[in-house]
């Protein structure tokens, strides 16, 4: 009777299946990789050093820089689809590597942002920071001048103090560094530069001349020791001579051509 009895283990997987599922893979990895591993150990220090350098440089590789020169407007799309229009002589920097962790750009100059809805979006300037969630707004930061205009949505502007502005409001940094709310009937004028139209309301003449120099990429000599205040507008469709005439006429100034540039002199 006991001759007929046998032990037959019940395997979950046959040896063929075990070969196919496990050994086929490990035996396909060539022995070369094991040798390399020994080399890696030997030169571990150098590999580590190289890795640290690469990791340190990595953010630089992903750092994007957009610069518009004088007389130039640039439109640029950020990784999330937000659009930035750079006015002349503006620099914008952002990092596409950490973009999806923190949306943010550094900016110097003037730019109009149309930010896609999403996480906090920050514009850093040397005069202050602007924080939004998803709106359209204009940031001006040149020299000590800092102004932010909100076209839609809400914008938080932070410098020495913090101001939250809404649609058709703006802030400007006063001489003492404090942010002051400004409200103009038509905030659209502050972003009309996108369409090559420049509006000025009670702006010192030297600031207007600076803007003309930026937009037309010309040098203009001008005695700054006055306190002329200009209100008016010009369009880039006009020639530089026409613009200078429009701007200088109310103050009794005359335009003279000087080499590649111009000089404004009293009549």
């Amino acid at each position, binding site marked *: 009777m006991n001759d007929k009895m*046998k*032990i*037959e283990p019940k395997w*979950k997987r046959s*040896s063929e299946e075990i*070969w196919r599922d496990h050994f086929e893979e490990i035996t396909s990895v*060539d022995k070369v990789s094991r040798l390399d591993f020994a080399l890696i150990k030997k030169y571990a220090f150098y590999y580590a050093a190289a890795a640290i350098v690469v990791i340190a440089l990595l953010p630089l590789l992903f750092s994007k820089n957009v610069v518009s020169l004088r007389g130039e407007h640039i439109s640029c799309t950020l990784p999330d689809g937000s659009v930035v229009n750079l006015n002349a002589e503006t620099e914008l920097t952002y990092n596409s590597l950490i973009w999806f962790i923190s949306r943010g750009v550094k900016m110097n100059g003037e730019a109009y942002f149309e930010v896609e809805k999403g996480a906090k979006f920050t514009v850093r300037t040397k005069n202050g920071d602007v924080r939004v969630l998803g709106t359209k707004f204009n940031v001006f930061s040149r020299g000590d001048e800092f102004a932010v205009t909100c076209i839609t949505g809400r914008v938080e502007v932070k410098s020495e103090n913090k101001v939250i502005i809404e649609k058709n409001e703006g802030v400007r940094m006063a001489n003492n560094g404090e942010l002051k709310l400004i409200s103009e009937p038509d905030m659209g004028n502050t972003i009309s530069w996108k369409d090559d139209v420049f509006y000025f309301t009670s702006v010192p003449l030297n600031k207007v001349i600076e803007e003309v120099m930026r937009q037309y990429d010309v040098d203009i000599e001008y005695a700054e020791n006055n306190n002329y205040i200009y209100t008016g507008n010009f369009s880039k469709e006009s020639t530089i001579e026409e613009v200078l005439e429009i701007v200088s006429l109310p103050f009794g100034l005359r335009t003279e051509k000087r080499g590649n540039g111009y000089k404004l002199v009293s009549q």
Partner: protein
Amino acid sequence: MLKAGKLRKEEFKKLFDTYFDAIRRYLYYRCSDSELASDVAQDLFTRIWEKSMQIDPVKDKALLYKMASDMIVSKLRRKKVELNYSGSIIIEESGNTPETNVEYEQLKIQYSEVLLKMPEKVRTTFLMSRGEELKYAEIAERLNVSVKAIEKRMNLALTLLRRDLRRETE
């Protein structure tokens, strides 16, 4: 390099095909747990490949069984296993098969109990002989003992079986 790698793989595949199931069975005889036996066998062959051990399928079979034995011993030290072979016993059809399933199951339990009474080495030897139909000389080679020792173990196993199974069935 590539060619050597391919050759090595072929040799390893041959070793695997020849011994994987035998080792797995041997481990099962030791622990009566088919999952554990499979895992340990897989670990053993993985180790052989990874350490690039040169194992001759003819000369080094005792080494293979020794390594398997050491591995299962260290596994069993950590994990307490209740031995029970009744689940894997099969009874081949013959003239005097038991009439009912109940009797059939009872017989399996009895057989398993006899197996548990055997000393480990006796049981392993007996099952290698019975389950895989290996010759005594072959078993002796694999377990690295003399044929005489195998004969002794088999005698003891058969004596135990005869005594216990006869008494129970009668």
